[in-house]
């Protein structure tokens, strides 16, 4: 099990060819109070860089971009009723999707924790 980070401030904890995906604590802090999360459905396929959801704070909407190619296998339904969980525990309880990774080689383009820490300073 390894955790990767994207430049779009997502984390991806990988086990074999599946992964859990969410936004980083840093991203949640930047967004401020999250009030709505628009998620796609299990079974939806996506390409790296494609939009896979929207996170809305009081003031603004921010898109969620896919860090790799893959398919959504599970959606964290709890976020619909409690979007504020993304501020409280973005790297734990408030995961957004579980996905199946189509091309594990794409993980090499992502950062490890040290790389991500360097990115956000």
């Amino acid at each position, binding site marked *: 099990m390894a955790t990767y980070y994207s430049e779009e401030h997502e984390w991806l904890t990988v086990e074999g060819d599946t992964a859990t995906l969410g936004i980083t604590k840093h991203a949640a802090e930047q967004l*401020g*109070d999250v*009030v*709505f999360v*628009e998620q796609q459905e299990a079974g939806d396929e996506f390409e790296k860089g494609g939009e896979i959801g*929207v996170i*809305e*704070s*009081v*003031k*603004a*909407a921010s898109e969620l971009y896919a860090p790799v190619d893959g398919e959504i296998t599970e959606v964290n339904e709890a976020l*619909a009723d409690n*979007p504020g969980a993304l501020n409280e525990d973005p790297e734990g309880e408030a995961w957004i999707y579980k996905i199946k990774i189509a091309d594990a080689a794409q993980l090499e383009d992502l950062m490890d924790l040290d790389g991500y820490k360097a990115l956000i300073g």
Partner: protein
Amino acid sequence: MSDAPKRTPLHSLHVELGGKLVDFAGWEMPVQYPLGIMGEHKQCREKAALFDVSHMGQVILRGENVGEKLEALCPQAYATLKPGKARYGFFTNADGGIMDDLIVSNAGDYYFVVVNAALRHQDIPHMREHLDGVEVVEIFDRALVAVQGPAAENVVGDLCPAARDLKFMETTEAPINGVDCRISRLGYTGEDGYEISIPEDKAIEVSKAFLAHEDCEAAGLGARDSLRLEAGLCLYGNDIDQSTSPIEASLGWAIQKRRKEEGGFPGADRVQKELAEGPAKKLVGIKPDGRAPARQGVEIQCAEGNTIGQITSGVFGPTVGGPVAMGYVSKGHGEPGETVNLIIRGKPQPAQIVALPFVKQNYKR
């Protein structure tokens, strides 16, 4: 001129308080503090919040019959504005559009005008050009701080008893901690409160004195926006602009009866025609049924699927506990209770037209 955003006299206080600073209309302003937009919004509705609004333009007008002369630029009855009173208004253009909205106060010896930050460069030359024999002085050495919320009377009144005696839309000069300030009982949050003009070198000291009150916390522009939208108040550049008329913007209440009848302001023909026949479009409150906020630019469709307008402001309303918006809908639409669809990211989301404000205004009249 430098492109670097300007700083208000409270800049170092924002930094000290952990404010998240953004460029707003050429000014480096706090969008929020560590409390967050939601918390700051609730602080203002339930207790009191302090906002730095020093980016707005403060102007002093001196001369003979200033009120009458302002009536040539604005549809408000400023000639009859009594000393110690303030009145919301706007400059209109020849086509009846709104050039800017503003607050005019009759300070007795002079008139005190507050205009939007982004339009200082337009409004001040506009007044200099058209207010004959009036000295137009833009003030650069005073901060403007808003203390808003049900506890504002105590926060300000504890330091300045004269503030307690003011009613909504009244203004006076009084010392706060020995500093001469202009104190006006008004604001743009829908709550009771004050806007206080403070000499710049004392602005942090006076602001800290307010913040020392247990019921007062600093709040940023994010909360200011959600507060004003819940209160049904227009934001220039979003809900009103050079093309929208006061009648379209549902601001007819801000034009006094005599001015509606007599006209005599730029664009009066259009305003009077729209008063008689109804405007082609009208600003209304819109409450989405779901949780997804409808932002500026979202298309509004009627139940039959035709486009009838556009959202001009939309946020999540922390007090309402759901999304709130304002937008224009074409003639024949806009009655409270009408069901519409908002096209958010390509998908229709049901919403209701509602009467404004979303949250009852809480002024001390």
